[in-house]
């Protein structure tokens, strides 16, 4: 078993039209997804949550308010899972609500 980090990115589109109903459904989706991984005994930890705001320090001492204003996806947060290989970890990433929202999940092996 190896550990893999699943990093999810949410698209930075306009969410202002999302209704309370959809929000409620979204909480459920995240719950179901994480529960599913947990039930298989594959969840290592739920990781920290990142706020969407922040700053980015670039070479030459340039500080910007983050890349999220320039690229289309915002790095949301991450969880760490157990899997035999990258293939299995990728399977676990299926069903992540970020994907339904038009975002993506990046799967990266974690070294000791």
């Amino acid at each position, binding site marked *: 078993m190896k550990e893999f980090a699943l990093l999810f990115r949410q698209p930075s589109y306009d969410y202002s039209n999302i209704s309370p*109903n959809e929000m*409620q459904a979204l909480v459920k989706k995240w719950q179901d997804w994480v529960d599913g991984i947990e039930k298989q005994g594959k969840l290592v930890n739920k990781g920290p949550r990142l706020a969407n*705001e922040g700053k980015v320090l670039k070479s030459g001492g340039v500080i910007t308010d983050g890349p999220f204003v320039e690229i289309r996806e915002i790095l949301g947060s991450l969880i760490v899972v157990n899997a035999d290989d990258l293939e299995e970890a990728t399977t676990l990433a299926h069903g992540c609500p970020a994907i339904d929202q038009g975002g993506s999940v990046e799967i990266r092996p974690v070294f000791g």
Partner: protein
Amino acid sequence: MDYTNQTLKQLFQQEFSKIVSVISKLYGLQYIETAEDIVSETFLLAAETWGIKGIPENPAAWLYVVAKQKTLYHFRRNKIYEKKVIPELASQKDEENNNSAGPDFSLSNIKDSQLQMMFAVCNPVIASEAQIGLALRILCGFGIDEIAEAFLSNKETINKRLFRAKEKLRNENVKMEMPTEDQLANRIDNVLHVIYLLFNEGYYSRTQNQILQKDFCLEALRLGLLLTENDKTNLPKTNALIALMCFHASRFNARQTKENLLILYEQQNRDLWDKDLIKQGIHYLNLSAHGNELSTYHLEARIASWHCINEDSYTANLTGREKWDDILQLYDKLIKINYSPSVLLNRIYALYRVKGEQSALSEAEKLNFENNHFYFLLLGELYKNIDSVKARINFQKAYSLAKTELEREDIMVKIDKLG
């Protein structure tokens, strides 16, 4: 705390309005869309975080902290804060607006902000249909899709309508503030009227979605109650409107079948009437009975209260005769302050119950509501026992003009009964 999905929806819905109001009060209504975006982003982060980590002990407080951070970040990042907001606020020299600390989510500020938002949204500069849409969105936190469903419209149309309404708020420079003493009398009427329309939108809704209908009515009731928490807006007519809404809402469970069909008043199972809401209604009706203004809400609440009394429970002193005598008198008064076809028709029905078909018919025949199926329904009802041919003609006219399948079915039954 166990947050089932239904309460989570309510939480998002209620907090939407609170957070948008607080942010808009601090920075001004021109930032109302920014405030909506901030709330949506906050909710999105909540969905992700709560889904993974579990729902926090105090979800509302969690939302306030995140919304506050996002607000401060947004205004700093866009430099709007330094360049525009601060100079403007400094020139106002308003010491209350201690805005560098960010939005204040204390209970009292939330209440003040919501109340001021009510007056802003129910501002006569906005067209009435847009007002209801804006109230549903900003004051009640409904989603655009739900509002579109209620108006049997689509998201784009509703979005455009809300956009124009918000633009109007900006262009007319509507402020988040309580009206002055001398403006209050007029402005409160507008607020009450919007709440009344909101309630009607739910009660006589065009949508088939029962949950949505009930939600609209409960939200209207909630907004009414919010007005009673402030001395300036806790007026007799505010209480009368609340009483009216309680009486009508008490029949919610009795007037619909599981299959979503409406059950007309006469056929309702009285045991399903909500006794608590009726008690509440009587309580607010009593509170409304002072001062020297007799509003349409007073009269309508009194009429509605009669309809909440179960005929079986009439005592010797309280007969059906007294009920209709009183209702007729109330309609006589109502017609003087609120002249409308439906009031006229209802009054004639009351007249029929008090004085019989002939008196009612002589008044009904004077009217000429060519396209109103209630009018022909009433005529049919009045002719029923004296001229079955005329009754049939009128019921048939009503049938051809009726708007819903249920109404048509009901009229068909009446026609069949004529034999």
